[in-house]
């Protein structure tokens, strides 16, 4: 009898434990899967990638307006508490540039705002310098031109009051900043990308920061390679763009007419890039920007 009672008690305990386990499982399944806590009070760090990008863009544009770096930092920290927020901004700018989301003036202002925010803090990315702020436009006020003819007074004994001086002043006309045909190398950047193996990207901008079409670009190499091509001929790319395929191991010099900077030697060195989860050896690519000088 004692043995039977002990077995029965042990069975009760086992049933209790099994019951708790089943109940626990059911409870968690219900609260995590069937009826989870309603999503409220989500913080920026919990946003998905697209929403984070929207939020970071808003932070950058807000910073462009109020120049409050501390507030911008706090807002970015709310988006990414556990990473370098400036590099995150640079990465977002890079992604936007790569995915060609730049379709309007507003988009360009966004790119400038992002770059202004991350570059001031020492971060860098693939969109560096690609959306330069144009040189300020100078507004000249031409001297008022007298439009009414001044006639001699008719011969009369009574004095005639003088004609009033013309008061209309024509509206000032916007003019382009005085420019020269001199160019400088504004930026040179190397990068390693398996999809752009040894690509030399050339961009030519005028003094206002707009791409210049039809500029001859001369590429020379110490091994006798000499090639000339023109900007603006690449379909789907900006007017000031041209590119050239480099061969691994060679050093190239790029120049355009009117270049006053010392030409830079760009070496197509091998580099390691990621492609499909594997590390592959490709040729270093370059971006080089030429900028027209204003007087």
């Amino acid at each position, binding site marked *: 009898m004692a043995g039977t009672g002990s077995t*029965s008690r042990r*069975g*009760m*305990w086992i*049933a*209790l*434990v*099994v*019951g*708790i*386990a*089943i*109940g*626990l499982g*059911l*409870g*968690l399944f*219900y*609260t*995590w899967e069937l009826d*989870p*806590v309603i*999503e*409220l*009070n*989500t*913080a*920026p760090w*919990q*946003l*998905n990638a697209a*929403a984070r990008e*929207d939020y970071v*863009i*808003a932070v950058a*544009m*807000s910073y*462009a*307006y*109020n120049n409050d770096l501390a507030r911008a930092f706090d*807002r970015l920290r709310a988006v990414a508490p556990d990473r370098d927020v400036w590099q995150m901004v640079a990465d977002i700018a890079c992604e936007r540039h790569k995915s060609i989301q730049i379709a*309007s*003036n*507003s988009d*360009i202002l*966004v790119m400038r*705002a992002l770059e202004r925010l991350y570059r001031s803090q020492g971060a860098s990315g693939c969109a560096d310098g*690609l*959306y330069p*702020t*144009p040189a*300020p*436009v100078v507004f000249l006020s031409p001297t008022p031109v007298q439009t009414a003819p001044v006639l001699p007074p008719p011969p009369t004994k009574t004095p005639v009051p003088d004609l009033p001086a013309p008061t209309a002043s024509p509206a000032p006309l*916007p003019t382009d900043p005085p420019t020269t045909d001199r160019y400088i190398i504004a930026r040179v950047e190397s990068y390693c990308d398996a999809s752009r193996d040894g690509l030399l990207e050339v961009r030519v901008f005028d003094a*206002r*920061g*707009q*791409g210049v079409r039809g500029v001859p670009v001369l590429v020379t190499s110490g091994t006798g390679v000499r090639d000339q091509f023109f900007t603006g001929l690449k379909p789907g790319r*900006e*007017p000031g763009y041209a590119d050239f395929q480099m061969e691994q191991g060679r050093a190239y010099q790029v120049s355009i007419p009117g270049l006053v900077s010392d030409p830079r030697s760009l070496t197509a060195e091998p580099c390691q890039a990621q492609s499909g989860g594997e590390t592959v050896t490709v040729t270093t690519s370059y971006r080089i920007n030429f900028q027209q000088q204003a007087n």
Partner: protein
Amino acid sequence: MSKRTLGSLLIGVLIGLAVGVYLGWVQFPVEYTNSSMQALAPRYQDEYTVMVSEAYLVDRDAEAALRRLAVLGKENVPDYVQDLTERYITQSNVPAIPSMVALAEAMGRLTPLMEVYRMPPPTAPASPVVEGQ
């Protein structure tokens, strides 16, 4: 299975359920990490809207502002902007008021309450920007 064993099992299930529900709803609730803007806490939604209004003062592009606010999932974005602007005015949230009033005006929602805070329109044309980059 005896009645006692069955009873123990049922008691265990009830205890387990209670503990499971407590853990799942209170102690370790589901933590979302892939949320949309619509789920953002109200205070962050308000902050985002103010940032969009400041962006509007940078680019003066009301359509872009509408696009940026559309992600919040509000039924009527101009209504929402008007409500938030008037709330900020009544709360004297001074830093946010001018840009919010400008955005409300761009959306055709300038009310008498906002008139005092209206910013003068920009006199100089916006600096030219690079096209087609």
